[in-house]
């Protein structure tokens, strides 16, 4: 914790947060929550998590640093503390992640005061869940290729198109959406809106089934959906700049989601050692196999390296370029979790074939399940390939790939 650097006000807030979280930590549900909030699909989980976020908001632990007039706490440097204390207390995650990490900062930067007053308080309280409409079947890594159209009609806009990878859309009241308003220029032809999703004429939300066989995200179809011009963020043609604000926050959020704090990672690596000590291989345990031991240690070196990297990111004297470490986060955590799960499957050997519902599957089929799921993280929020482009271009200054 950075408790030492807290101002007196921040220290007092930290005490409050710590005490409140200890006293109000909710009892766990009988069914296990998914690994990440964006994967919540059951109504039971949604209700539990929405209630929890609302309580946190009422206790002043959500939106602490947003202006008071828009429902925030009006403080500075409090959210970091609240998040640290939530992590330390091991409380459930906040369900409205896309709202908090992407929609809210974007609306705050680019929205009118009227929109801020209308949208932010219920977003903070999880009374209204948000989702994000960027990716399309033909615009993934090349996001600026979005084709979902918005056509002006008097004081309204008419939306038509197809968004995919839309997490939480089945619960969502609202979506931040990137639309094409002109074909004259790829980037300047984009405009950014907020659109209603729930109970909206012309909007169809269809769950997409992941390679795990589970529901986790959705596609959203727009057919002549009418929204008022007041739901536009920033100027017509400025959608790409607004989207950059969102993405700036998304990558950090994806990294946080992937990391789940350091706990997921530590649990995963410790799990590899335990698994290897149980599984048989060539007449001994897998742990007794020098090659397996080395592979596990490679993962442990990377995991500890990442922890120390984040630590170093805050030491001014030991960083060269301000974005060099932050821009690595999502790439590192996603590839590490993927490699760790893949290794878990190798160690499990024949047992890696056993999937959910099979009583003999080691660790409840966690290894094949998390390996399959890991591709969600290496693809979402900018694929690993795009992350490497960004690092090469923005940090190393290499020529931009087209």
């Amino acid at each position, binding site marked *: 914790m950075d408790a030492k650097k807290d101002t007196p006000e921040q220290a007092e807030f930290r005490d409050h947060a710590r005490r409140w979280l200890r006293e109000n930590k909710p009892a766990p549900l009988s069914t296990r929550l998914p690994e990440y909030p964006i994967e919540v699909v059951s109504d039971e989980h949604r209700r539990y998590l929405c209630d929890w976020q609302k309580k946190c908001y009422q206790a002043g632990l959500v939106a602490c640093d947003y202006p008071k007039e828009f429902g925030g706490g009006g403080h500075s440097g409090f959210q970091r503390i609240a998040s640290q204390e939530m992590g330390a207390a091991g409380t459930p995650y906040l369900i409205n992640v896309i709202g908090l990490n992407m929609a809210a900062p974007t609306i705050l930067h680019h929205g009118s005061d009227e929109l801020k007053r209308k949208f932010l308080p219920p977003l903070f309280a999880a009374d209204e869940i948000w989702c994000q409409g960027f990716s399309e079947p033909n615009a993934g890594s090349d996001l600026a290729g979005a084709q979902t159209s918005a056509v002006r009609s008097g004081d309204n806009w008419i939306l038509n198109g197809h968004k995919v990878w839309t997490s939480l859309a089945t619960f969502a009241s609202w979506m931040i959406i990137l639309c094409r308003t002109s074909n004259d220029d790829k980037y300047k032809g984009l405009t950014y809106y907020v659109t209603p999703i729930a109970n909206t004429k012309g909007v169809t939300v269809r769950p997409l089934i992941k390679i795990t066989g589970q529901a986790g995200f959705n596609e959203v179809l727009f057919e002549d959906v009418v929204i008022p011009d007041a739901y536009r963020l920033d100027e017509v043609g400025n959608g790409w700049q607004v989207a950059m604000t969102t993405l700036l926050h998304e990558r950090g959020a994806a990294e946080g989601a992937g990391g789940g704090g350091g706990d997921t990672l530590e649990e995963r690596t410790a799990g590899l050692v335990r698994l290897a000590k149980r599984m048989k291989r060539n007449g001994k345990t897998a742990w007794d196999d*020098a090659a397996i031991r080395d592979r596990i240690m490679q993962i442990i070196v990377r995991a500890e390296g990442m922890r120390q990297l984040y630590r170093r990111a805050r030491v001014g004297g030991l960083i060269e370029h301000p974005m060099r470490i932050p821009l690595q986060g999502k790439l590192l955590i996603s590839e590490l979790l993927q490699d760790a799960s893949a290794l878990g499957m190798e160690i499990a050997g024949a047992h890696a074939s056993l999937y959910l519902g099979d009583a003999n599957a080691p660790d409840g089929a966690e290894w094949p399940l998390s390996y399959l799921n890991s591709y969600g993280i290496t693809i979402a929020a900018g694929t690993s390939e795009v992350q490497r482009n960004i690092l090469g271009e923005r940090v190393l200054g290499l020529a931009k790939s087209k």
Partner: protein
Amino acid sequence: MAQPKDFGFGEDEQMLRDSARKFLADNAGIETLRRSVAHDHHEAYESPVPPATYDADLWAKMVELGWTTLAVPESSGGSGMKMVAVAALAEEAGRAALVSPLITTLLATCTLREAASDGARAALTRIVGGEASALAITNADGVWDSADSGVTAKVTKKGATLNGTVHFVQDARKVAFFVVAAKSGKKVGLYVVNADTPGVTIHPDRIVDLTRDQAHITFENVTIPATQIVAPAGEGEAVLTKAMPAWLTIVAADMCGAGEWQLQTTTAYAQMRKQFDHPIGFFQAVKHPLVNMMVKIDEARSLVYAAACAIDVEPKSAERYARLAKSSASDMAAFCSGRSVQLHGGIGFTWECDVHIYFKRQKHNQMLFGDGLFQRSKLADMFDSAA
């Protein structure tokens, strides 16, 4: 004691690092490096006696700057700075591919300071006075494991007599004295032996790396006085075990600095060199490996500072962190070296392109005190006892 969040890397450490970087850029830049060790391939690899390039003037300046006394405790006349400061200096030495007994003297210093003997203190005082020193602890098998040096010591009333051959001694021809591990029966002791003592013969090795010299050293009835006993027979192994995390950390830090040079140099080339109408860094087949170099350097460097910090404040975890750091840095060094030559293309394969100098230093350091595979094997052993 828990580690401080900032690794203990404060203003003093940063000032030292920044001034070291500037000093080495001014006094041991790439032009100087090329001129001193790589101007002629015949001389580098075919001289009757392998070269041991040594710049006495540069050494004197570094002594004057206090670099050799950083790791010496204040009680022995040094400045007793933190290990993070030593790591930062080693990183700069690596960035410059520094040709100097500085690193080897730091390794010897970190060993001597773990022995609470008059002999050790006397040796540290000599280092403070500007003398260079090297560890001589590795046997003919290349095993630097403390239990098995290739030298025996016969302890007498007046001191000890050493016989045998120790191998893989770094910068052997640039130092005034060696810290020698020698066995009496099964007991390991540590002894200071001056390079010019009768009976000491230094046999230079022909090595790939151009930025250092290496030798095996024969001791024939080499007699030393009791004042040069650093650790009496039976106490040497503990001293080496305690010092080992510092060796790994220093060498890993050197590799991080050199790795960063490889990254920056290769990146600059990828920005400038044009093929197929684009700077080659435009192509992802070049761009992505450069990013992978950066990612590996950043991992290794973070682990190096964690290891240095552990040595300073959390000695119980020092071995674990140091092995993590050396494992990461060794693999990083191998990767960055390979990519630095490959991505330079045709010119990268020639003697005139500087990348081979760093390539060779990195490959040498990769193996020194055990490569990544070795460190990970030791790390795995630590999990055997844990449930």
